[in-house]
């Protein structure tokens, strides 16, 4: 029996191994035999005898193969295959649901670059602010306060957005809609634009709130009372400059 035949008998006992594992085992055993043969050659053995002694030292190839086979239990192979299959399915689902990533995008963008534009017909005064308030799971962020004209009314406009405290979390969609903007006299007008959103995204919500004011008003109040959460937030108005 030569080295090649020895290897074939040993590998024939490995019934539960994959082709790559079989190749790795072949290389490993071949390497061991090669090292041992080289050692014997250095000691003065001739090549044929060195190979014969090496195979004798390795033992019966069938027995060695059977012992080796036990080192490759089938359940770990099944677990690997299941894990690979599930990973492929997950990646396919992620690719199919790539639109959902807009939620994640909005969640991040609103944190880094919150909307702060104004939609007044005519602006009298405007001020960039950065007021943050924790409301339940969310952070409510006010980015701009303006005064001016809207639909023929003298109004204060508050630009605001909200997002979950945890990045990628779902933003409360009803938060802004539950806020009532009141002027200094405690009046709230509902005829103006309220709320708004990032095209139905759950990652963040944004909107503008309006309430009518009188010249000389210095603040408005945002009132919120929903699902056990309450706040009254007084927001100073920017000083209007006489035209």
């Amino acid at each position: 029996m030569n080295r090649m035949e020895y290897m074939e008998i040993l590998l024939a006992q490995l019934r539960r191994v994959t082709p790559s594992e079989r190749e790795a085992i072949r290389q490993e055993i071949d390497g061991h035999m090669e090292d041992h043969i080289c050692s014997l050659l250095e000691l003065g053995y001739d090549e044929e005898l060195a190979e014969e002694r090496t195979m004798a030292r390795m033992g019966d190839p069938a027995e060695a193969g059977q012992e080796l086979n036990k080192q490759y239990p089938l359940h770990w192979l099944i677990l690997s295959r299941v894990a690979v299959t599930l990973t492929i399915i997950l990646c396919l689902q992620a690719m199919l649901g790539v639109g959902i990533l807009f939620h994640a995008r909005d969640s991040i963008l609103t944190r880094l670059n919150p909307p702060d534009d104004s939609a007044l017909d005519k602006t009298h005064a405007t001020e960039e602010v950065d007021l943050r308030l924790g409301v339940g799971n969310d952070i409510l962020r006010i980015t701009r306060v303006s005064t001016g004209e809207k639909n023929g009314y003298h109004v204060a406009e508050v630009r605001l957005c909200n997002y979950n405290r945890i990045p990628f979390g779902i933003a409360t969609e009803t938060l802004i809609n539950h806020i009532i903007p009141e002027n200094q006299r405690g009046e709230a007008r509902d005829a103006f634009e309220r709320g708004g959103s990032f095209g139905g995204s759950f990652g963040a919500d944004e909107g503008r709130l309006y309430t009518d004011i009188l010249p000389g008003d210095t603040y408005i109040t945002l009132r919120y009372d929903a699902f056990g959460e309450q706040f009254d937030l007084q927001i100073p108005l920017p000083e209007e400059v006489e035209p």
Partner: protein
Amino acid sequence: MKRRIWTRKRKALSLTAVTLVLFFLFQYTYGICLMHPVQARWEAEQFYGCGSTERICHVWDGAVGQHVTLSSNEHALLLIGTYSTLSGWSCRDRDAVDCSEAAPLYGGTLRLSDGAVEDVVYAYGQVNDAAIDKIQLSFCFAANETAPTETHIYLTDAEDWHEHNGQRYFLLRSDALMPAYAPLNGRPYQINQGMVWDCTLTALNQYGTVLAEIKT
């Protein structure tokens, strides 16, 4: 350099770890791969910002292929319809009611759809007045703008309600299945959603006297 040979066990555990990381990442960022309906409820709680709720009752509605779950906490009532897809559990139809104050009756309605063929209307609520013995749900429905109006009325008795932490809750299903979409102008591919309006919940005592009314 000698190449490191991974054992089968080590390889299997590493791949499983990668799969689990991806799984939780996609659950978190995409909201997909939800393995249990309760995760869809958690999403709805976040959506309404109503805080964590406890399940009151749960029914399977085969007509629309959804699990209907009523849950509540001190300040909110939440009704959701969840269904299973290849991407895990999902929630399409949901509604929440703020019940922070001490009103005799809190309630809402939710139209559940299977997304294609039929819809049902659910009414749900919390009854705080011990004198309330019955709840009546009434609503108008028309399959499309030219179809005749149908008025539907349903009644639920106190004995069918659920008790949880000393509170009484009801969940009422309208038996009528309504077409979710109706053909428009005889063209089956151009569709118009059926309409439901004037949804009213009326609380009655044992003598039939109206004690409270909610328009949803």
